[in-house]
């Protein structure tokens, strides 16, 4: 299992559009991927899961990936977060 912690810098937090982009990206991976904030965790491939956490600017999220392509998945996620959020 691979894990990544990231603090959101986008002033609008994880709003609909980047959430959608993130999900599009994650759908390519076999691994089970979760997103967690303050101990609440959700399936990161589900739009309602991601948006349901209502992540705002300055909050830290933990992303985990478990599966055959977990390594590359976490790398891609990190790049995506840095670029977009």
């Amino acid at each position, binding site marked *: 299992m691979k894990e990544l912690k990231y603090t959101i810098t986008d002033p609008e937090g994880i709003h*609909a559009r980047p959430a959608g982009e993130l999900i599009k990206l994650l759908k390519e991976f076999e691994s089970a991927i979760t997103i967690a904030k303050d101990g609440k965790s959700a399936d990161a491939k589900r739009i309602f899961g991601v948006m349901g956490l209502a992540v705002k600017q300055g909050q830290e999220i933990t992303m985990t990936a478990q599966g055959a392509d977990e390594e590359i998945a976490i790398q891609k996620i990190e790049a995506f977060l840095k670029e977009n959020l």
Partner: protein
Amino acid sequence: MLTFQGKSVINGVAIGKLFVYKKGEQQVKRARVEDTESELARFRRAQQEAIKQLQDLYETSVKSIGEASAAIFEIHQMMLQDDGFVEAIENIIRTQSVNAEYAVAATSDNFYKMFSDMEDDYMRERAADVKDISERLLTALSGRSAGMEKLSEPVIIVADDLAPSETVQLDKDKVLAFVTVHGSLNSHTAILAKTMNIPALIGTPIPLDDTVDGKPAIIDGAKGILYVEPEEKILAQMQERKRAEEEQKELLLTLRGKENITLDGRRIKLYANIGNSKDLAMVLQNDAGGIGLFRSEFLYLEKEDYPTEEEQFSVYKTVAETMAGKKVIIRTLDIGADKQADYFKLAHEENPAMGLRAIRICLTRPEVFKTQLRALFRASAYGNIAIMYPMIISVDEVRRIKEMVAEVKKELEEQHIEYGEVEQGIMIETPAAVMMSDELAKEVDFFSIGTNDLTQYTLAIDRQNPELDAFYDAHHPAILRMIKTVVDNAHKAGIWAGICGELGADTSLTQDFLKMGVDELSVSPGRILPIRKIVLETNVNAL
């Protein structure tokens, strides 16, 4: 006439008929089904149909409103494919043996609640997305086609709230504005209105029925007011505003960035008059070449006591820096007459227009004047500041001012405080100054003609008295001759002359001013481009 107050998204005026948009209310009944498998299949077909519609909407709207705004339809597709959402629906159908419509409605309520309970405004707005996709599913289940009826004429759309799938299907040419009862400044309607740059009022408590449907209406975006069946007076007022807005928009597009030069190569400077540093945005927006009249009175009028040197300095510095090297002509305080500040403790006068005002106060209260001069000279280190003295009647006054200026400069030098090159000029607004303009021109760097007072003093007509309107002629030849005299005398002494009164903005005189050789017109920011238009079309030699 009815009026409603809403939150305005875009300033601007919209005039047209109201069109009340009502959603096809979908009443959902709970019904038992025997064959849950075929009900599940019916749901999946509806789901596929809804996704396909959204894909189509996405593709059309990428073209019409752009990628960023269209992205919402991709999100909606994802929502319809969200495992949690889909499983919840299927679960209800399977375990309760109920119809798909009921399962969709029940699931939608749960997800709606999840978002509407959130603290964050933006996320609360997403509850509308849940409603939107559920409505779409229900429509697909019913086999009806979705969509807003065709609009036959341009209208102001009134609705409870508008879902993105509804707004995107609108024929954009037929939408003048939006009014919604619900929604926030983050709602889709608000975002769409901004994209389309049309007025929208959000959160407007308006009944969605025949009291407003089809009625003529006006939106005043600046005030956030909706007028239904407006009175003649308001209609006329708003039509004028709208006309001016449209004219302005067009001018902005074509005239921004152009030089103020006539067909035969005569140049004129077009500067802006402002009364407050808040007006700076308008100055830049309208492409002013500088500020020709910065009325420093506001610093005094909005205070309970004399503004300090530091307070004044910081305002002048901001203006100078914002204008980034463009000329900023600041008029020293013009208190008195109709502009009174209690702490000046000016005695009551029988005839205040001819009383202790403007430069006369400065010369009788040197401490007040020097504070302002120090602030002005200090700010001059940060930009291109010029100073203009009002209500001058004699050469002697100018000399006394110059003595005070010399003292201020000397003080600053002794204190090692920097100041820049400052042009100093006077307002020509008394007949005496016009008569003496040849002498005055030798003392100063420029003239700016204040036509409001000059007209009042020359014609001996009080502009506040409506009974005198019949005698008043803004284009009285006496005034035009005076302007000509002042300009000629300025040029003889090698200085420049401009006009900063209302007459300067009178486009019916722009060509006359060009012909007289006026070097600068300073007008309210919104008048700059209309005047530029005339300048560009004029051939001075042919006049």
